[in-house]
């Protein structure tokens, strides 16, 4: 295995707060990596840095041993880094199909003049995009909804649509920001299956999630963040028994009961 993504002392400051503080980590090619930590630990900021939505204050980032530090989001997307968002960022007024087709933007080439003249190449490209997008919708189980407005979808389906938009361009690295938030138990189960299937097709996944069962069920390794720094890293088993992780995030079994009895 080789490192697909390497972060080297990556940092991001917001005013006086170090949201991500000298974070170094490697994501191996083909794995599903979990990224966990308490609220405000810097998980989403880390994804924003990796996807290029915000530039780092300092540090380096490499994708497949190529230095990509400070590259803007659209170029990293073209290199194959795609993501979903914690607070769902869909193109609400467009159809489900159009949402996914926008994910294929970097795969196309036709511009204004080709569209005005409706050249054969342009029409073939559109057909290719429709075909690929329907296939991605099929993968996430939304093929029957292609013609509906994205805003008309049920909440769980919107989460799946974001994933379809992110995977349609066959990324090499998929960043998922709390994909299970707001899903019920059966939807969560479907999601875990979907993440595994996507990974089986060769997509490396970096998964931010608060549902520990999702993390434990799908991740081969886990990185734990706290106050923007790396607290621990290891297999699910190692993380579950790591003292500092338990103190900072997981909590001890029976912890709440002891608190309750202390105040009783």
């Amino acid at each position, binding site marked *: 295995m080789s490192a697909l993504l390497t972060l080297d002392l990556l940092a991001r400051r917001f005013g006086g707060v170090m949201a991500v503080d000298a974070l170094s980590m490697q994501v191996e090619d083909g794995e599903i990596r979990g990224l966990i930590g308490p609220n405000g630990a810097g998980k989403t900021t880390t994804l924003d840095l990796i996807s*290029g*939505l915000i530039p780092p204050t300092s540090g380096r980032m490499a994708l497949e041993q190529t230095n990509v530090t400070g590259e*803007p989001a*659209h170029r990293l997307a*073209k290199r194959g880094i795609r993501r979903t968002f914690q607070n769902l960022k869909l193109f609400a007024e467009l159809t489900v199909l159009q949402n996914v087709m926008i994910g294929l*933007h970097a795969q196309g080439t036709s511009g204004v003049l080709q569209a*005005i003249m*409706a050249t054969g190449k342009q029409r073939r490209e559109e057909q290719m995009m429709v075909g690929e997008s329907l296939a991605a919708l099929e993968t996430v189980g939304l093929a029957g909804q292609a013609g*509906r407005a994205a805003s008309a979808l049920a909440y769980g389906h919107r989460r799946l649509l974001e994933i379809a*938009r992110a995977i349609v361009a066959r990324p090499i690295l998929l960043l998922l920001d709390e994909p299970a938030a707001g899903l019920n138990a059966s939807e969560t189960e479907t999601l875990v299956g979907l993440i595994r299937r996507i990974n089986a097709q060769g997509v490396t996944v970096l998964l931010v999630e608060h549902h520990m069962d999702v993390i434990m069920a799908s991740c081969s390794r886990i990185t734990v963040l706290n106050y923007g720094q790396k607290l621990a890293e290891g297999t699910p088993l190692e993380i579950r028994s790591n003292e500092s992780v338990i103190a900072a995030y997981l909590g001890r079994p029976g912890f709440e009961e002891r608190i309750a009895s202390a105040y009783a």
Partner: protein
Amino acid sequence: MSTSQFPAGYLWAARVTVLAICIVVPVVYPQRYVVHILGLAIIFAIAALALQLLLGFAGLLSIGQAAFLGIGAYTSAILTTTYRVPFELGFIAAGLVAGFASLTLVPITRLRGVYLAVATLGFTIIVHLVLLNEEWLTGGSFGMLNITWPSLGPWSLKGETPTYYFCLAVLIASFVTLHRLIPSRFGRALQAIMLDEDAARASGIDLTYYKSQAFVVAAVITGFAGSLFAHHSQYLNPNDFTFWKSIEILLMVAVGGIGSLAGAVSGAFVVTLLPEFLRSADEYRMIIFGTMLIIFMGLGQRGLAGLFSVAAMRLVALLERAGAVPARRSKRQ
């Protein structure tokens, strides 16, 4: 976007009907004044379509469109009058020069909403001052007189009616152009930017590049409209291109309905023709016009296009219930 839920067959029927009316009107009402005003409405409809691309499909609020209209008008007028260039070349140059001029806006495409609007407003003011003060080129406040009628190769389009039909042809071409652009890769990128910039960036869309391109496309189309304006009136004055004209073009889009091409065209007709219809009301006409604008806006955000489609849907439903037309299957699930 707003037309998507409407059955295509009825949409085409409506388009063909409107087009037929536009073709027949100069035959039925051949008075010079009527044809002239209708020609003007068509020219502004082209400019409104261009702004609709920016505002309705890219979310870019420009109050700079009069500048591009003026640049196109003066480019065409100067080339054909001072340099005796044939109209066709002047017309094409008008679009190209306006397009190039819009590249100066690239640095401000990162601005949003009101800030972008104010910056483009500044652009209108500067262009107006240039038109007013560079007398050697534009004739200054005196304006430009005796601009030729349009011509196409060996055919002169001398007179109101031939010029009207030429303007109509350019309007149709502009409509078809935008109608093809909006569902294309380019148009989807613009709509993605309008609806969520972060998601657009993360999907591989370069915001600055696409916003700039939207401005260029809109400027080229507005430049063509400017050329038509010059040769249709045969007289230019810098005061035709103050920021008030930019506001008027914005009114057309807002009245017609943001996000609808047909809306932009109908908005241009209303904003151009209504004050003419109200001429009998004399000094009250602008008050009545202003009041009607407020009422139009109050009726709903989607303007005339919204009203039309609601009315048409009701009509179709009524006809279906009466058995006059076969009921279509509901697409809703």
